[in-house]
């Protein structure tokens, strides 16, 4: 089974393919070399016998037979053939029995089957031969058997055997080795991943020192695991917070019920106790409801409920709802609208977000203070600002207020669930808008949105929303904006928050990337 796997493994198959290609290539190369060499030898031999026949043809007649005999005598390798024939075809000298039939005696070299005079095995080889009819009518035929060809072919064959076979085997072995090595590493990674899956969040993949792709991949995955571990721990923290926040009202309810059971003597007393208990339970339920709502918004990637929403109307409505409450508290609530503007979004959610901001502002502003709702806009951006004369949110707490259940120590005793700003942040994020928290003293929270016309111009297909590789944090601080320290090109926004891409001023904000490693 394991062997099959190893043979079927990609690395090994690739190695096999490379080896086969290499072998084919080498065989082709050898064939080419063989052919070229053969051609060269034949051409050389042809030139040699042509020169010889010229030389012999130039000799006086009586010396020709002698020259033919000498030539044959000196030929120790028995590759030369020569024949001198009379005009009628009778052999005068040499080792050729007769002039080959159909042989042109015009001095061109041809490959012909000669009939040797004395032959070992009675075979008649094909020989490069040239023939001429001499001036006196005699016929001179010279031939040379190019036997080196066979030697070359045997040498080439040997070279092939010595070269290609080991190379092929080497290739296959290397492939097998690489394959086994890769499989070993995959197996190791698999084991570690299994441990991670089993809940061992601290486990990491082996990185090694080498800079090979495998090690780089491991480093990327490890980076991701670091990030995920942090996030999971944060979530676990949230779980603890929830448990803690639920426990407080439940404890009150339980205590009330317990005391009532022991001490209540009249129906009125019992009812009072029950009311207290119900209030405690209702507060726990409010926490659960708010939390579910938050999850609902955070998980909601759909923008089905989106449309053009008039922000000025929402602001007036929110103001309308909170005016009596502010008045009761002795707070002046005002709304300043530059001009009407529409944004692309979910009306109910935007209302919820702005109502939450105003709710907070009214809650934390002491009597005699002011809460101001503002809407400023230009062609591309719209800015909703909620400012108050309350204590505001100081530098250290700015990040923390967006955390679930965060409640400043100063406001421990103010009623509320502690999810308000996280909810606003979630809604703002869903819209691809931006939440800006101003510096204390005096509370100021702004939502920087992009006008409907602008987002329509640059709107991306809905399926792309949220599919971006980079997660962008929605929070930026006003200081950082003013200081101009955070700057980022528009292209980096693309694919993440489509509506932000359009905003000139938004592109000045710095999104905090959570997955830096995807950038490479």
């Amino acid at each position, binding site marked *: 089974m394991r062997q099959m796997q190893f043979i079927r493994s990609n690395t090994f198959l690739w190695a096999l393919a490379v080896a086969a290609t290499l072998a084919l290539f080498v065989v082709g190369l050898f064939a080419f070399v063989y052919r070229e060499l053969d051609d060269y030898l034949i051409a050389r031999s042809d030139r040699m016998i042509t020169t010889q026949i010229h030389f012999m043809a130039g000799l006086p007649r009586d010396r020709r037979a002698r020259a033919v005999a000498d030539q044959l005598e000196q030929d120790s390798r028995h590759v030369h053939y020569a024949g001198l024939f009379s005009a009628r075809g009778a052999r005068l000298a040499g080792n050729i029995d007769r002039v080959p039939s159909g042989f042109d005696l015009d001095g061109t070299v041809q490959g012909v089957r000669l009939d040797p005079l004395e032959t070992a095995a009675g075979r008649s080889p094909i020989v490069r031969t040239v023939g001429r009819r001499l001036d006196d009518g005699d016929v001179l035929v010279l031939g040379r058997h190019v036997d080196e060809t066979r030697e070359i072919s045997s040498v080439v064959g040997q070279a092939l055997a010595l070269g290609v076979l080991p190379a092929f085997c080497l290739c296959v072995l290397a492939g097998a080795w690489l394959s086994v090595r890769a499989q070993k590493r995959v197996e190791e990674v698999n084991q570690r991943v299994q441990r991670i899956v089993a809940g061992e969040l601290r486990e990491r993949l082996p990185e090694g020192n080498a800079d090979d792709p495998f090690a780089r991949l491991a480093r990327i995955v490890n980076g991701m695991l670091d990030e995920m571990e942090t996030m999971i721990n944060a979530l676990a923290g949230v779980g603890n917070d929830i448990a803690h926040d639920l426990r407080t009202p439940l404890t009150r309810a339980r205590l009330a019920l317990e005391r009532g059971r022991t001490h209540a003597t009249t129906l009125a007393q019992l009812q009072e106790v029950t009311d207290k208990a119900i209030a405690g339970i209702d507060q726990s339920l409010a926490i659960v409801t708010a939390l579910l*709502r938050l999850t609902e918004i955070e998980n909601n990637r759909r923008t089905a409920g989106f449309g053009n929403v008039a922000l000025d109307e929402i602001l007036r409505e929110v103001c309308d709802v909170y005016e009596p409450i502010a008045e009761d508290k002795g707070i002046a609530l005002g709304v300043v609208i530059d001009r009407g503007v529409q944004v692309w979004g979910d009306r109910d959610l935007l209302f919820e977000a702005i109502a939450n901001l105003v709710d907070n502002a009214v809650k934390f502003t002491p009597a005699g203070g002011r809460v101001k709702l503002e809407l400023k806009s230009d062609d591309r951006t719209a800015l909703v600002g909620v400012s108050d004369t309350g204590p505001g949110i100081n530098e250290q707490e700015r990040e923390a207020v967006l955390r679930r259940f965060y409640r400043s120590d100063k406001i421990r005793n103010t009623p509320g669930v502690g999810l308000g700003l996280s909810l606003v942040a979630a809604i703002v994020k869903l819209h691809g808008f931006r939440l800006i928290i101003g510096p204390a003293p005096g509370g100021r929270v702004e939502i920087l949105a992009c006008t409907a016309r602008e987002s329509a111009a640059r709107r991306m297909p809905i399926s792309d929303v949220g599919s971006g590789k980079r997660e962008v944090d929605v929070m930026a601080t006003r200081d950082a904006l003013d200081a101009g320290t955070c700057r980022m090109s528009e292209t980096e926004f693309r694919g993440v928050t489509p509506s932000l891409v359009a905003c000139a001023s938004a592109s000045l904000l710095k999104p905090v990337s959570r997955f830096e490693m995807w950038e490479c």
Partner: protein
Amino acid sequence: MTRILLIEDDIETAEAIVAELAERSFEVQWAPNGIEGLDHARTSHPDAMIVDRMLPGMDGLTVVEALRNDQIRTPVLVLSALGAVDDRVRGLRMGGDDYLTKPFAIVELVARIEALLRRPTENRETVLVAGPLELDLIERTARRGEREIDLLPREFRLLEYMMRRSDQLLTRAMLLEEVWNYKFVPATTNLIDVHMGRLRHKVDAPGDVQLIHNVRGSGFILRGRQ
């Protein structure tokens, strides 16, 4: 006697609801699953129905849809543990008339059932009357007896809603949903009380018989009949 069909699979919840409604002199028929419930709804023609959304056998919304397909228009209150806005919208779109998320206060349930049973008919009257109160919907004016009441638009809207449902308990949640069109629970819990306080201050002048009543722990009633 008003007859109500309750389709709810949890026996304890069902028993509590049945007991509570019986106390308020409703006749309640209980079905523990969707198939039985649909059967009862078709044969016994109740005045209103309370349908749990998640039921064994047949989903609550399917029951409602089946009824609506049969042209049975019985008002339905859908109960559900699914509280998300999307779930609610789906519940109402599939034929539910009102949607209540579990867990709920029993007074909330009763108030909503009453509201369903006494849904204001689609009338074209332009002047609403409740006791000494008169609301002119065209002139946008309100008067109590001879006294002219000066109302802000939001107060007018609230009073109109209450006069259409006079002598009914209106819970805070109902008012938030219907008058303010809230799709969420506001962080400030006394939001409605403050608005109601304003309205009451204008409607019930010192010395007048009180028309707007605060029902402790549950909501408000506009009493037209004294």
